[in-house]
C-alpha cells in the first residue's frame, strides 16, 4: 500500500482553481480489532494538513479519525494562475510528516 502515490491535481477554471487531493493513509480509528489476533489496531490518522500557495497557507485542516481511509479533499482557490505551485504538507499522530506538490494546469 505504501508504494501507491499520493495524488494532487489543480485545474484552472473560469473564476477559480479546483484543487483535488487523494492521499494514501490508513486513517485507523483505534476501535477496530484485528480479525486474527483480536487485538485492537492502534489509532493512526492524519492530524493536520496545510495547503500552501504563493508561500501562504490557504487552507489548514485539523482532522480526527472520522475522515475516511485514503483521505480525499477538494477546495476552490480563488486567485491562482496556471504554472503556479501548490504544496500540501501533513503530519499524523505518530509525528510522521509528508508532502505532495503540483503545478496549476
Amino acid at each position, binding site marked *: 500500500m505504501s508504494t501507491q502515490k499520493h495524488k494532487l491535481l489543480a485545474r484552472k477554471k473560469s473564476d477559480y482553481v479546483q484543487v483535488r487531493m487523494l492521499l494514501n493513509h490508513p486513517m485507523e480509528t483505534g476501535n*477496530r480489532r484485528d480479525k486474527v489476533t483480536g487485538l485492537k489496531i492502534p489509532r493512526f490518522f492524519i492530524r493536520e494538513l496545510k495547503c500552501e500557495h504563493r508561500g501562504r497557507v490557504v487552507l489548514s485542516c485539523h482532522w480526527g*479519525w472520522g*475522515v475516511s481511509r485514503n483521505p480525499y479533499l477538494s477546495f476552490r*482557490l480563488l486567485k491562482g494562475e496556471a504554472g503556479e505551485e501548490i504544496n500540501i504538507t501533513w503530519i499524523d499522530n505518530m509525528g510522521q510528516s509528508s508532502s505532495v506538490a503540483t503545478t496549476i494546469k
Partner: protein
Amino acid sequence: MKRRELLKSGAMLSVNALIVYGFGFYSIKTYAAWPKHIFHKNNIQSAISEITGQSNTEIQTSDRVRIKVDKIVEDGSTVPVTIISELESTKYIYILSDKNPNPVIARYQMTPDISPVISTRIKMGGSGNIVALVETDNTYYRASKRIKVTAGGCA
C-alpha cells in the same frame, strides 16, 4: 554471548524509540495546536458545546450553510460530503456525525484565498445526522442532514 547481544539490541531499541518519539513530539509542536479536546468528545451535544460554548439548541440553523450528500449511502466507511457556506467571513467549518463514537470528524480553517466549498469523504457509524457547523466572525451557524447508511463503517 547471546545475552550480551540481546541486551545490546534492547539498548539500541530504546535509544531509537527515544529519537523517534522525541522528534515526533518536536515536529508536532511546530504545527498549530490540534484541538484534542473536541475530537475526544463522545456525544454530539458535548462536542458542540465544547466548540461553541453554547448548547445545541442555541445555535441558529442557517439555510446559507448547505450540505451536499446522498440521502442513502451503501458504505458508511466512505461517505462523500460537500459543505458549502454562503455566509460572509466564514472562519471555520466543522463536520460532525452524531452516530460516530467520537462525533467530531474534521475542522477546516478558511482564508480569504479560497471559497468556502469543501468536499471530503467521512466515516459514519450508521444511519444518522451529518452536522455542519460554521464559525463566522461573531457567531456560529449550523445545518444538518439525515443520512441512511445501509452498511456501517466505523466499527
